[in-house]
């Protein structure tokens, strides 16, 4: 199977072609303002190489486009929020903890209706379908085109959200609807926030996916298009239109997954050294360990599946303080090729130190010849100290662990680090994120509370739900593997209540994939 992986980063757009497990071709191009032409440039370079011609089975894109839109408050639409669960949870309406500027930009209208469920599946009160019909008519009258629906305990019983969608589709069929249970976990405000963020991105998702399709078509590639998700798995382009929030943290995840693939290691630490920051994470069974906590996106609390990463201000473009030899956290960023000494600029950067130390051979070496040996040693020692301290913070077990060093700034990682058994560098490591996109798998998740079941029965039931979801998303049933099982007994609930969260992932099913081309 031949797949193209593309990572659209802040500085570079990387593209790789994988034939089976092997990287055939890799290219880096500057990211452009319109994103599409950067992708097109990269794809054209790839198609120009004789080795990279021939049919392609899938194109997988990782992008930070949607999260940047939220952070920068660009291209967002006004939405309606429907909360089902009254009279419970009445005092904290949708948008109640959003940054004011963002809320004001996107808050269309709020509807709070009776309904929702208890943890044990009993309705709180019957769903107010008459109120829902009135809300749908009002949404149509206001001309709102995107709606987020949340209902209390919908991850356990989504029926109120589904009934709301049916009414919306009947009364205002052109409205895009996001249901919170499709996005998340227990935690009403955070799940609702995720649904709202998803709804405000609807137009941008439609446009972006169309632009990605256009770029691949223009480069002469006829293959199904996928986008990578936060957890290192893929979704079909159609699904990405419906769930743009699922791509929010895919960049860092892709580089970790790529590192796993390129090194053949499934359990290791990873450091991805870029131009501005180093991201440190931990691979478990080939996937990044996830943060088990609330994640803020543009100031909004959410509970997305995000990799547990530690980001520090250490990269190839980091400033070096001439007095103390401290590295970072300031960086020249995308201006590295203008501002660094070796490129004729005036700013002493980590890249200059690496060239002076003989670790790297780029730019004009004579421009860093006067840097003292003490300065070089002190700066490299500071980079080492930062890496050692933060790698140790990310470790979850005592003892030394292997570390895979990837990214364009990986030259800053020394050959030996305290707490690290072995430092692994891989070919194509500077395009690890695009490799991670190319190899991404299809996943399914279940997160539910089970009562009156033995622990293993509850886990088995959750596994079945997760597997069904993965297969529906295009996974080959024979290749499914369990990525994560977490069970959490719940205080004060009767019947041995157990909350079980399970995640499975499998290879892309080729038949499902090709059906998507049309």
């Amino acid at each position: 199977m031949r797949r193209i992986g593309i990572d659209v980063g802040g500085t570079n757009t990387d593209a790789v072609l994988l034939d089976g497990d092997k990287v055939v071709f890799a290219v880096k191009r500057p990211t452009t303002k319109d994103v599409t032409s950067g992708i097109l440039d990269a794809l054209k370079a790839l198609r120009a190489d004789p080795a990279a011609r021939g049919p392609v089975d899938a194109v997988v894109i990782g992008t930070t486009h949607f999260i940047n839109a939220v952070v920068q408050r660009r291209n967002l639409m006004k939405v309606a929020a429907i909360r089902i669960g009254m009279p419970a949870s009445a005092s904290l309406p949708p948008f109640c903890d959003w940054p004011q500027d963002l809320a004001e930009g996107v808050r269309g209208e709020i509807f709070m209706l009776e309904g929702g469920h208890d943890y044990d599946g009993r309705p709180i009160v019957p769903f107010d379908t008459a109120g829902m019909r009135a809300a749908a008519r009002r949404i149509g009258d206001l001309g709102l085109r995107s709606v987020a629906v949340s209902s209390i305990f919908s991850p356990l019983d989504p029926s109120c959200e589904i009934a709301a969608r049916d009414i919306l589709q009947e009364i205002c069929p052109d409205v895009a609807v996001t249901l919170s249970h499709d996005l998340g976990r227990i935690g009403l405000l955070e799940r609702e926030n995720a649904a709202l963020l998803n709804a405000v991105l609807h137009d941008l998702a439609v446009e972006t996916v169309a632009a990605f399709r256009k770029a691949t078509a223009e480069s002469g590639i006829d293959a199904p298009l996928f986008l990578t998700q936060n957890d290192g798995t893929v979704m079909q382009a159609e699904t990405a239109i419906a769930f743009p929030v699922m791509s929010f943290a895919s960049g860092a995840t892709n580089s970790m997954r790529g590192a796993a693939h390129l090194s053949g290691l499934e359990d290791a630490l990873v450091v991805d050294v870029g131009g501005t920051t180093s991201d440190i994470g931990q691979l478990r069974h080939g996937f990044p360990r996830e943060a088990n906590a609330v994640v803020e996106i543009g100031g909004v609390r959410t509970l997305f599946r995000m990799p547990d990463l530690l980001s520090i201000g250490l990269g190839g473009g980091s400033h070096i303080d001439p007095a103390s030899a401290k590295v970072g956290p300031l960086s020249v960023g995308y201006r590295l090729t203008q501002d660094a000494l070796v490129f004729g600029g005036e700013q002493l950067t980590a890249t200059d130190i690496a060239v002076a130390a003989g670790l790297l051979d780029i730019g004009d070496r004579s421009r860093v010849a006067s840097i003292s040996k003490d300065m070089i040693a002190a700066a490299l020692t500071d980079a080492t100290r930062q890496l050692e301290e933060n790698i140790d913070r990310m470790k979850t077990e005592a003892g030394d662990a292997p570390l895979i060093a990837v990214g364009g700034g990986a030259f800053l990682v020394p050959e030996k680090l305290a707490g690290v058994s072995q430092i692994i560098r891989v070919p194509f490591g500077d395009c690890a994120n695009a490799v991670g996109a190319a190899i991404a798998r299809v996943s399914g998740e279940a997160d539910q509370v089970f009562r009156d079941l033995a622990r293993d029965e509850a886990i088995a039931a959750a596994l079945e739900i997760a597997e069904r979801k993965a297969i529906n998303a295009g996974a080959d049933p024979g290749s499914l593997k369990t990525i994560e099982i977490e069970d959490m007994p719940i205080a004060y609930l009767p019947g041995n209540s157990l909350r079980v969260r399970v995640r499975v992932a499998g290879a892309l099913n080729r038949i499902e994939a090709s059906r998507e081309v049309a």
Partner: protein
Amino acid sequence: MNEPVLTEITLEDIESLAVGAWILGTGGGGSPYLGLLNLRRLYAEGYRVQLMSPLDLDDDDRVAVVSNMGAPLIGQERLADSRNIARAVEMQEEFGRFKFRAVMSVEIGGGNGTQALMAAAHLNIPVVDADCMGRAFPEAQMTSVAIGGLRPYPCTLYDPRGIEAIVTKVPSWKWMERASRKICVEMGSIASTSKAPRTGREVKDWGIHFTTTAAIRIGRLVREANRLHTDPIAALLESEGGKRLFTGKVVDVARRTTEGFLRGSVAIEGIDDDRGSRLELSFQNEWIVAWREGKAVAMSPDLICVLESVSGHAVGTETVRYGQRVTVVALPAPAVLTSPRGLEFVGPRAFGYDLDFRSVFEERPGAGV
């Protein structure tokens, strides 16, 4: 009726209270975040809350004791609502045919630390600067008023779908816990409750005083240290006379539920000065005993607080996870909890540990008594 000095609680105070109450929650009681959101909204709508000293209460004043009862996980879906807690208090007034002078929280630790303020805003009466635990505990009988042998009934429970329940009489605090817990479970495992009303005299004799201001003070220290990038934990220990027990990284978390409680243990591997050593914490909703090399080095009712080493914010028994960098500290318990009768209710044996209570602060003359 004497004229009490009333102090208006500012929104800044409330932001600090949320941080401090989470620390005083000693791992349990749920996060005060949703209570904080309620209060931010109430303040934006013009509501204000006044704080009064327990010493300013008249002997025959009535004081409402409020709490939000239930599993914190349920509280993440059925969100805390200030009107519900106010309704539970009104039910007491209707049942007893009297008016409350003021309201107080049953426990200052965790999410309940903000409940009294939420009720007070709607009822337009002050909050008493006191509670019945000085921290958080898992059960209704683990309070200073139970230790004082005060009457455990009546208790009102309110559910927003229109179910209102009153437990009018029970033979003991334990029975009150059992009866009201059953009702709470039927209500969806979350209910707004107003516990047995107290007189001003009882609050003066048996309340744990000035705990609201303590929570605000602790939260303010931590937030200020975060702002200035100074050490919040050092500031906390100095201000509250606390003791650092251990600094390390969480390496193991085991949880189970038994009889409806979240029980388990956490292992922390030492770093810095504690490198090469290991601390184990046993919990039942709250942190109960800290063990070092098999020896109990701190135990309930001394407050065992697990804090994120850098931010100084609290880590709960439901949110603790592998890899977290934490500092475990002990704060001295209120004297009523460490009295011989207090230890029967909240000492290590009340949680099933065959240990004689020994305070971390024993060596320090005057502390913890």
